[in-house]
């Protein structure tokens, strides 16, 4: 088995979950993930509550503002603050989106990088700069997209080219693969097969919203759809059992419901573990 920095099934921690999850154990939720942009420079009661979580759970940073594909200059000072934050809280790794979220200032949501050769080199160089500062590999996530402006190659080829050239890791978001396969009309399993197994650090799974039959929106506001559970099973069968985190950012249900959905990840992992031959 490959050596992952976290194990089992995880859950994204949000501010609204600090109270509800205060008595949950690491046996129930094996690891957590936070957006550093929500916690750097936050003290007071929130800071203290957050500290009580990083003391008990294995943590990953899942960033939102790095804007790795942006024309704006890379915010070196920000990357240093993330690195410092990770040290202060013993956070094991840093993942970010393969997208851009700023143009002449931050826009606080994700936009699609044009899939071009030039963009591959540009993004890979910026990832390398980040890796030099954080002194560990950056984990890059495939994002959901509702448009592909300026596309000159397929998403999977763009993703692979960036990862190889930057020599970075991959956070494979299975829901995003499904969402994009519907929105842009490709075969999700073919995409997954092309992913180099040895680059995967962990997986994401989440619910999406069906705006139309051919247009899905990655809202993180609902339970995981059966199609996506099926794709998770397929991913485990093909790449092995990999640590997997549930993202839930809106319409957050009770702790019991969240834990039972995390348990479904554990179930899928156990099921695949019996089948998987390393």
């Amino acid at each position: 088995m490959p050596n992952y920095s976290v194990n089992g099934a995880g859950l994204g921690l949000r501010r609204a979950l600090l109270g509800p999850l205060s008595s949950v154990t690491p046996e129930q939720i094996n690891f957590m993930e936070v957006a550093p942009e929500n916690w750097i420079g936050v003290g007071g009661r929130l800071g203290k509550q957050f500290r009580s979580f990083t003391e008990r759970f294995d943590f990953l940073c899942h960033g939102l503002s790095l804007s790795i594909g942006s024309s704006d200059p890379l915010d070196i000072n920000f990357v240093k603050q993330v690195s410092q934050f990770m040290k202060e809280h013993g956070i094991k790794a840093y993942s970010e989106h393969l997208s851009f979220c700023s143009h002449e200032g931050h826009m606080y949501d994700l936009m699609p990088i044009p899939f071009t050769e030039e963009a591959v080199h540009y993004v890979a160089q910026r990832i390398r700069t980040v890796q030099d500062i954080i002194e560990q590999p950056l984990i890059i996530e495939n994002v959901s997209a509702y448009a592909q402006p300026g596309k000159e190659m397929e998403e999977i080829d763009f993703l692979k080219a960036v990862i190889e050239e930057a020599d970075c890791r991959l956070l494979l978001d299975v829901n995003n693969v499904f969402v994009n396969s519907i929105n842009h009309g490709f075969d999700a399993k073919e995409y997954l097969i092309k992913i180099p197994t040895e680059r995967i650090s962990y997986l994401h799974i989440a619910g999406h919203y069906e705006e139309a039959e051919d247009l899905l929106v990655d809202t993180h506001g609902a339970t995981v759809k059966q199609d996506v559970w099926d794709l998770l099973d397929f991913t485990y069968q093909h790449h092995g059992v990999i640590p997997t985190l549930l993202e839930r950012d809106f319409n957050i249900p009770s702790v019991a419901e969240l834990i039972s959905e995390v348990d479904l990840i554990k179930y899928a992992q156990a099921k695949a573990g019996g089948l998987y031959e390393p």
Partner: protein
Amino acid sequence: MSRELYESGELGNQVPNSMPEFKRIQQAFANHIKSPEHVARPSDVDERHMAVYRDLFFKNIMSFLSGGFPVLAEIIGEERWQVIGRAFFSSHYNKTPYFLEISREFLSFLEHEYTPTTEDPAYLYELAHYEWLELFVDVEPEEKVAEATRGKESAELVFDNNCNISSTTPRMSPVVEGFLYQYPVHQISAENPSVETKETALIVFRKRDDDVGFAESNPFTLQLLSLLKEGGRTGAEAVTLLLSQRGLEGHQAAYNGGIKTLEHWLALGIIWEGR
């Protein structure tokens, strides 16, 4: 400016010729999301898909603003609030990567870039400032304040309201700010949106249980607060200095009033202890 120019995207998307093609595409995409009324939709993205991005981004920005300024949002009303939000999103250069600091960016926008209309209440900026202040006092890390105000002195604060506050050096709540507003911003609400000008001194501070405390003050005691925040003076020395700055040396009643204020602040938790 002709409408044709806008629609061709040229005005919103002036770029140097040396810019790589993918950056041109990104610029056109981002600028359309920021200002859909002024920057044309990228030609290779259809309306239905572009609308998803426009809506996601604008709703996201509005949820940060409404979450940070709930009273202001309610008083201004949905329609006008969206207009202000759009002006912020399309024209302000957001420097912070941190979500809780978007409120500060908006405040800076209101102060330096926004031109109020006659529809806007005259206290718009002050109310926004007061709402931001509550958030600031809630989340600002104690260490950051301590570094700025107390130098190297880092002994842990304890809460001791039995100390003699005039003969010891008062140590303040780790996060305490006082401001003099021109409106009674703390009394404004959707039920009470029309207030007259009235000089209003307010102190907002972090309580011992990490809750946010509020206290009314006056310009005189606000000055006392800033002397105390400088540190290094006993309560009596701070009050004496304040009186001399105000030309009230030896005024016994004013001195007694100053000491009473210190005792009151100790009881409220604006001052945590004396050393």
